[in-house]
């Protein structure tokens, strides 16, 4: 009986620790999905839920304030398939209204990834645009013509879109799905 109780306690402990670790890596509450992107609207807010607060304390991230801008993160393409380093993606062609935006590539934890080109992202103020003012960013491991964002030496990666000085709030319905960039998979090696 005692052995059984101890075994149950030990398994419960292990499960509890494991579940906490994985859940805090990507907290489930307070995040809004817009197309391929997720926005943790409450990250860094004083009234954030306990999961969001714990995730912030663990990651060490210094969150953007709502008044400064928004950070959108994509870990999958527009069709919902996880981003794969063997594929070519086209990200475009427009973003929600903002004074400036940047689009950068990170590893799963949000750190820039070493690459031979030394390029970690694009700025709205320094990007090649088409005739309509739209843009296409090509995300791939191999060099690509135009705005090429290299994947670099990493297995799993994420894309981060930041909108600085935007009138948008990420709360329900604040951002139209049609206004965020799409992430189209163009082919895989």
């Amino acid at each position: 009986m005692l052995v059984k109780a101890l075994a149950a306690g030990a398994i419960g402990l292990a499960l509890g620790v494991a579940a906490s670790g994985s859940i805090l890596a990507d907290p489930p509450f307070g995040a809004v999905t817009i197309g391929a992107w997720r926005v943790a609207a409450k990250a860094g807010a004083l009234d954030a839920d306990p999961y969001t607060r714990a995730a912030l304390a663990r990651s060490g991230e210094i969150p953007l304030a709502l008044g400064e801008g928004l950070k959108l993160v994509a870990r999958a393409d527009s069709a919902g398939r996880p981003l794969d380093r063997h594929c070519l993606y086209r990200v475009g062609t427009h973003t929600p209204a903002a004074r400036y935006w940047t689009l950068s590539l990170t590893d799963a934890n949000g750190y820039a990834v070493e690459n031979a080109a030394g390029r970690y992202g694009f700025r709205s103020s320094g990007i090649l645009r088409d005739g309509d003012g739209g843009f296409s960013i090509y995300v791939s491991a191999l060099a690509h013509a135009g705005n090429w964002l290299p994947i670099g030496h990493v297995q799993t990666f994420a894309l981060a879109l930041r909108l600085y000085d935007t009138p948008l709030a990420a709360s329900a319905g604040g951002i139209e799905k049609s206004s965020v960039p799409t992430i189209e998979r163009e082919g895989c090696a």
Partner: protein
Amino acid sequence: MSVTARLGGVALFVATVAATAALIHFTMVLLVPVVATHDAYARLADLGSPGTTAALPRAGPDERRFPWDDPALAAAFCRFDLSAGPVRVKAPVGRAGFASLSFHTRRGAVFYALTDRAATHGRMEMVIATPAQLRQLVAHDDEDDPSQDLRVVSPTVQGFVIMRAFSELPSLYAAAADEVKAMTCATEPPPS
């Protein structure tokens, strides 16, 4: 042992596992912010002492302290401690490009932020105070000539201020880095 008794034993075992797991999980979620030794404030503490402005390292593949930092943004910080009095933050702005100040509690949550759109006379300026210090400041205000200071109450005695400046092009990063380093955070002299 009957089948029912054995099933009951299994159910009890599963329930004990689930209850323990849930208890551990919720305890961890609530305790992590309190016991975290590597939160943003602790990481900043390695880079600069309270009241002094220090640059945040630029985001890049060799920089593993502050996840999700944007390589296009230069940033600097100062930690503040209100136990010796309110702290005045001054941040000159004068470049093309976005700049902002964000005010964080000891746990990293944002309690106030402003952008260069709110700058007057070429700078963003703010006084951080505890609720008691704010009451004292207001009590000392001249009724005919009230202070023009922007004041904000910090929920915690300690915390930090981040200044961010956007560089429109990679070649303009150095200018943005110079701008954020010019921020000052100084404890106010006691009101006379």
